[in-house]
């Protein structure tokens, strides 16, 4: 999987370099090939954390708890990178680093939720209790995603993000690098989660895992 990811990265880098420069936004528009794929990774990571937590609570499966850690950590990394690339792009096109736009606000809050999740884990030390606490907090985070979107829907906050990004809305020659970006970063996401999951499993074997008794 690592080799595939390496090959994809090369193709992705090449595609982004050779992609046409946007006539309106200039070179900064190339963040497009990184930013939305990072967002998908972040949301996917948070969703997996919540669902794995539920399965862990319901069935007592410790491997699910380890998966929750892995996807929360990778999700936070993706979310952090998204929150870094976003303002850079925003400064270039909207003229401001930050706006309290619906999607920005929700994503920032989710980032805090999962940072808190990781803090909760690291402050309580490895124990079955920590695993349960984290799982409950992960469920709360999962509930917060639709709840936050509901708030924004209700108060009709405007968003500067395009409502849906379809292939057709991209200019000529931009579709392929965007597609490659999505594939590569999705691969990177799953690869990182898998590696982290393995590490946690090894730790459990070594008797220092987060959910080890």
């Amino acid at each position, binding site marked *: 999987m690592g080799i595939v990811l390496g090959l994809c990265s090369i193709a992705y880098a090449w595609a982004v370099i050779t992609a046409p420069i946007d006539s309106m936004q200039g070179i900064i528009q190339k963040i497009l090939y990184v930013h939305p794929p990072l967002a998908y990774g972040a949301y996917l990571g948070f969703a997996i954390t919540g669902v794995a937590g539920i399965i862990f609570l319901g069935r007592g499966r410790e491997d699910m708890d380890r998966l929750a850690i892995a996807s929360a950590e990778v999700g936070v990394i993706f979310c952090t990178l998204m929150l870094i690339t976003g303002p850079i792009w925003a400064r270039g096109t909207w003229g401001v680093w930050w706006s309290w736009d619906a999607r920005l606000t929700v994503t920032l809050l989710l980032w805090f939720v999962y940072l808190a999740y990781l803090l909760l884990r690291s402050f309580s030390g490895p124990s079955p209790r920590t695993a349960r606490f984290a799982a409950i907090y992960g*469920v*709360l985070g999962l*509930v*917060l995603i639709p709840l*936050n979107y509901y708030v924004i829907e209700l108060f009709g906050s405007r968003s500067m993000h395009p409502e849906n990004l379809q292939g057709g809305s991209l200019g000529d020659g931009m579709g392929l690098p965007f597609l490659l970006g999505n594939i590569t970063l999705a691969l990177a996401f799953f690869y990182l989660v898998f590696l982290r999951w393995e590490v946690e499993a090894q730790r459990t074997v070594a008797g220092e895992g987060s959910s080890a008794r």
Partner: protein
Amino acid sequence: MNVALAILWKDLISEWRARDRVVAMLIFSILMAVVFHFALPGRRPEELQALTPGLLWTAYIFAALLGLNRSLALELDNDALAGLALAPGNRGWIFLGKATANWILISLVQAVTALIFAIFYRVDLAPALPGLALVVGLGTVGICAAGTLLATMAVRTGFREVLLPVLLLPALFPVLAGAVEGSLAAVQGVSIPFESLQLLIVVDGVYLVVAFLGFDYVLDE
């Protein structure tokens, strides 16, 4: 259900005997009102009136954090929390008892705080009172539901009380959004937007259900 009432009664009695939590929250809230005076210097009274609901909720949230932490930290003495976990029946009722006690105590503090803010910032609260009470009451249900659950976790981590704000504040965004909007309308004398009440009720319901069910795993010894 009896368990919930017993816990509620126990919490109210012990607070009545010690009177430390309510007093601490109250002094803190009044201090917040003074802090805001220095944080927003040179504002005209009309400007401050428009800001008051937001300031009020800021004080409410932080005072609530104080009270919630204390409410669960108390149970750590003599391993009382472990004792509660051994009580027969659904642990959700224990949550409900504690959350209700917190709601009553925090509401009491909030009522006095509102009075203090009204005096300091010259807001006429009398006509806004029923609407404001409704919004604050509903908002506080959400705070107490999520707060009681998360405080039960936080006080038993290595970081104890410090962790609760980090855990709770991100979860309070929907509550704040609805509550500040509703309080602003109440203070300005217009009818409270239905969206705020709807949002608060939905959030309260969701948090109550999550906390009621989740408390079983949080209290598990």
